[in-house]
């Protein structure tokens, strides 16, 4: 088995172990994309949806790490930064 194959297996295994959490995140993401397309052209509503999605993502991360006893302040900051970067990029690019 090549290193690439075993990496893919590692990712598949990671998803399998946390299937419920990843399914929940994917469902939230699909719902977010659906809401964005539903409010197409309404930039204010879209911004609120983006902020809600980022907060939900942050909450998902915190709950996930609490459940798996890996919760740490550094992790919270990481999720906050990732979520903020996502909103920042999306909003800045759309306001260009």
């Amino acid at each position, binding site marked *: 088995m090549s290193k690439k194959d075993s990496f893919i297996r590692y990712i598949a295994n990671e998803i399998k172990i946390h299937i419920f959490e*990843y399914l929940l995140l*994917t469902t939230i993401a699909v719902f977010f994309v659906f809401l964005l397309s539903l409010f*197409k*052209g309404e930039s204010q509503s879209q911004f609120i949806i983006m902020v809600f999605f980022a907060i939900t993502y942050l909450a998902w991360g915190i709950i996930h790490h609490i459940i798996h006893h890996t919760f740490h302040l550094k992790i919270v900051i990481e999720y906050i930064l*990732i979520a903020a970067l996502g909103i920042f990029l999306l909003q800045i*690019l*759309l306001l*260009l």
Partner: protein
Amino acid sequence: MIYKSTSAGFSTGKVLGIATHITTQELIQEVNGERIKKGLYPLTHNPKLEKAAYDKAKNMFQYNYWAHYGPDGSTPWDFIRAEGYEYEYAGENLAKDFMFSQNVVDAWMASPTHRENILRDRYTEVGFAVVDGTLQGLPTTLVVQIFGTPFLTKNESHTKVLAESYTPTHTYFGYTLKKISFNSGLLFLVLLFLVLIIDLYYAYRMRLVRITGKTLAHALFFIIIMTALLITAKGTIL
């Protein structure tokens, strides 16, 4: 929407969509590019049709509607006639919420009725208006495209197009600063995604034990942001 002055029939179709960087020059080049691909005459710019398109856009903002027909019963043909343009054939395409000129034309080309308007060989002239305003409480950029064929001067007009108006050389390269910024933003997101995947790969290979968040979840988050960006950058079709 098309209308032939000598017949009672007409058909409807509209692309309704936020334009942040759309110019009439780019629109006409894109539309003519599509016509040339199909072996049709390029359309010539007509100031009267352009004024009619501008008045139509202003009217939509003034009466707060998004349709071919106004709430007061006004039709696109009223705006054309008001400019003293006597037409044999006329048509109208509308768009809003698009970011780039190319996206507007792509959306029109993807809609059979709008495509039909753009590729209608009977049309010889066109006028565009790109107007900013507030529609239904939201900042909007409307794009109005009005086609026309002057009454009784169709052949003359065609000859004129062939003889004088069309320059096959494109001076527009399709890349504006805004478009470059948008594409660089997308590229940055893709790079972030790749960095996360590479990080995950090396962490796995080196069997690192780290106090970090879920890289896979971050990657998924950026995929969603990219998808959202592509969705929101695209206008709507009504």
